[in-house]
């Protein structure tokens, strides 16, 4: 008897949740449609901006999700790594190579900067893992989490020293101007960030699914002890994962610095939080989910900030985090995540 009432209650609850979710999505679609009717050109432009922000978030979100997938740690320092990547590329391109305008040589410098910043951030991430997180791998969960917060503060300090306390603007090597299709203006910078991000994402997917190292990563994520017995060097695999995450954050840092032309020491905290939200939204630990979540968050943020009928930029974070909280409450596993049962 008790079992039956429990089941019906569960069922009723699920029905209520589903109808509420349908209602919310319908409301959002209606809002989008109204905006589209009001000014189609602006809508398309804003959507495109949101999409390009989304893939930038995806690069950062993948770092969170990779690390969480393998050692179940929220690496709070990851956003700040992205910030340092941006700072490094700004210094590399503008101060060390003195490139200020788009040119043939500029493209070469840009490529060189991309490779160096990826290596730079990967090395930092490996170092952090080696000296802080590795010692705490068997400690209660609170310990590595607090350590990660501390690491984030230290990286912010480095950023503060390197960049100064204010925002700094930098010249961009990317061509200015817009590609105009049917009166819709699409900036070249956005197109280029697509051109950089998509190959990087494909390469990552290749590494994780096709290579031996990727196989080792997946095995370690499932069961560290068993994979150790199978002859996998667990420490090296985890270091490799951190390196991958760091490299992605570095690439994101370069793209952000070049497309927006600014650096600031506390940028990493904000963007890291948003990217983390994206990773959770897609189901943390799931790579496709992180990209999906990041694109959705980018779009929502773009729409909220840029559409004629919207809350506007000052509520941007509130909107993003409200969505995160709602999602956590109703679907803690995320959009693509699998439910996990707790092991005793």
């Amino acid at each position: 008897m008790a079992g039956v009432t429990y089941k019906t209650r569960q069922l009723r609850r699920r029905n209520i949740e589903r109808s509420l979710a349908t209602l919310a999505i319908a409301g959002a679609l209606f809002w989008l449609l109204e905006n589209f009717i009001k000014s189609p050109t602006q809508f398309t432009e804003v959507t495109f901006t949101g999409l390009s922000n989304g893939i930038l978030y995806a690069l950062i979100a993948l770092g969170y999700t990779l690390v969480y997938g393998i050692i179940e740690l929220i690496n709070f320092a990851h956003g700040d790594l992205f910030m340092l990547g941006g700072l490094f590329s700004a210094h590399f391109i503008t101060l060390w190579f003195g490139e200020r305008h788009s040119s043939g040589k500029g493209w070469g410098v840009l490529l060189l900067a991309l490779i160096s910043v990826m290596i730079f951030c990967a090395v930092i991430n490996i170092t952090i893992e080696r000296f802080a997180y590795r010692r705490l791998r068997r400690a209660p969960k609170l310990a590595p989490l607090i350590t990660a917060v501390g690491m984030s503060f230290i990286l912010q300090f480095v950023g503060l020293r390197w960049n100064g306390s204010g925002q700094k603007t930098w010249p961009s090597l990317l061509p200015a101007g817009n590609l105009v299709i049917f009166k819709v203006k699409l900036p070249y910078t956005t197109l280029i960030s697509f051109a950089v991000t998509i190959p990087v994402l494909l390469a990552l997917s290749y590494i994780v699914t096709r290579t031996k190292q990727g196989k080792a990563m997946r095995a370690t994520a499932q069961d560290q002890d068993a994979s150790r017995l199978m002859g996998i060097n667990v420490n090296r695999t985890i270091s490799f994962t951190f390196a991958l995450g760091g490299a992605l954050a570095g690439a994101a840092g370069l793209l952000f610095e070049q497309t927006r032309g600014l650096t600031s020491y506390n940028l990493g905290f904000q963007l890291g939080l948003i990217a983390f939200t994206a990773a959770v939204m897609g189901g943390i630990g799931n790579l496709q989910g992180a990209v999906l979540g990041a694109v959705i968050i980018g779009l929502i943020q773009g729409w909220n900030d840029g559409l004629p009928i919207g809350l506007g930029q000052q509520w941007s974070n509130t909107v993003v985090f409200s969505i995160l909280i709602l999602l956590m409450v109703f679907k803690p596993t995320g959009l693509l995540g699998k439910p996990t049962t707790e092991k005793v």
Partner: protein
Amino acid sequence: MSIITRKKSGKKQRAPLSQRTWSIGFLSLAVVIYIFYTYIVPHTSDGFQSQIQTWFPPSALNEALVWVIAALGLNIVVGYAGLLDLGFVAFWAIGGYTAGWLMSGFFNQWNIHFGSESAKVIPGIHLSFWLVLILGALLCAFFGIVIGAPTLRLKSDYLAIVTLGFGEIIPQIFVNGENIHGFNLSNGTKGISPVDSIGIFGKRLGPFDLNYKYMIFVFMAALMVFISLRLRSGRLGRAWLAIREDELAASMMGVPLMKTKLAAYAVGAISGGLAGVAYATHVNGIFAERFQFSISIILLAMVVLGGMGNVWGVMVGALLIAWVNSTGLPALGNEINSTFKTNINFPSYTFLIFGALLILMMLFRREGLLPESRLKLMLHESDAEEGNEAPHDQISEEGAM
């Protein structure tokens, strides 16, 4: 297993005694400090007085006590119940704005006076400080439950993120709250100022009555200590500790997880609210842009440094960090600069200091300066299972592989 037996056999009788010694120690320290500032300092030489003003000014002491109150609340959430809360600043902000709304001329369309010593003609809502303390605490407890109810089902790291999200949302609401459909909720970044000063025994405290304020804040901190200690040894406190140590096992033993966690949240939020109200009267205003993520982290650092779960440790940690943050670091920096003829801007190193502090504590002394014996055993359980230095040995072994 061994934890429980040890607790039963030897320590049970000694524990209350040591709590009593600590309480007496702290109360007498508070009295000594009071006597020192009220009766001794005014009669000393000018040089000594200015030394006191640079190193330990009374206002910094009061601010440190506000931090203590908030840290004790966070200790209940993090130290007792083991729920990582990264958005504690939200409760501080809510408490502060309660004081801003109910103790100032901000809502000047109304004219409500109750128990406040301010003149009746001044427009605005002016309630008694003590009433506002209770109202702020209640409002925060309500928000603690509202925030907690949907989120406490989550596992630890998700909970941390959701609380972080709330810690970002609520200050943003206050920053943008100047015009919500034409209603001015918080006066935006301009903040609400001045807030009424504390009224006690029919008298309003002036801006220089720091000694009275000190006594009131000590009283509030002592109240939080009392609440923490009583709750901890009671049924609820034991349920918190059980959840902290093993959530699954606790729920199997019949501990109602949601209710217990919510209680931790609500009690923690109450003290956040008290701290908020106290802070508003301390700085004589409330400003939205002060409520940043770093406040949550500083509070966490206080709890971690002092010793999670140990009230006295948290108190020492909070006093120490609050002092370093307000006057200790600049004064120490000036001293070092003048002796070694260097020119280092010490306060700019706060990020490094807090970050390094958190990391080093976690790596080498997870249990804090004044550890709680039970938590210490728990935190080193993994080491004990595999011999003392197991994690290090294992790593070097694997590295050679």
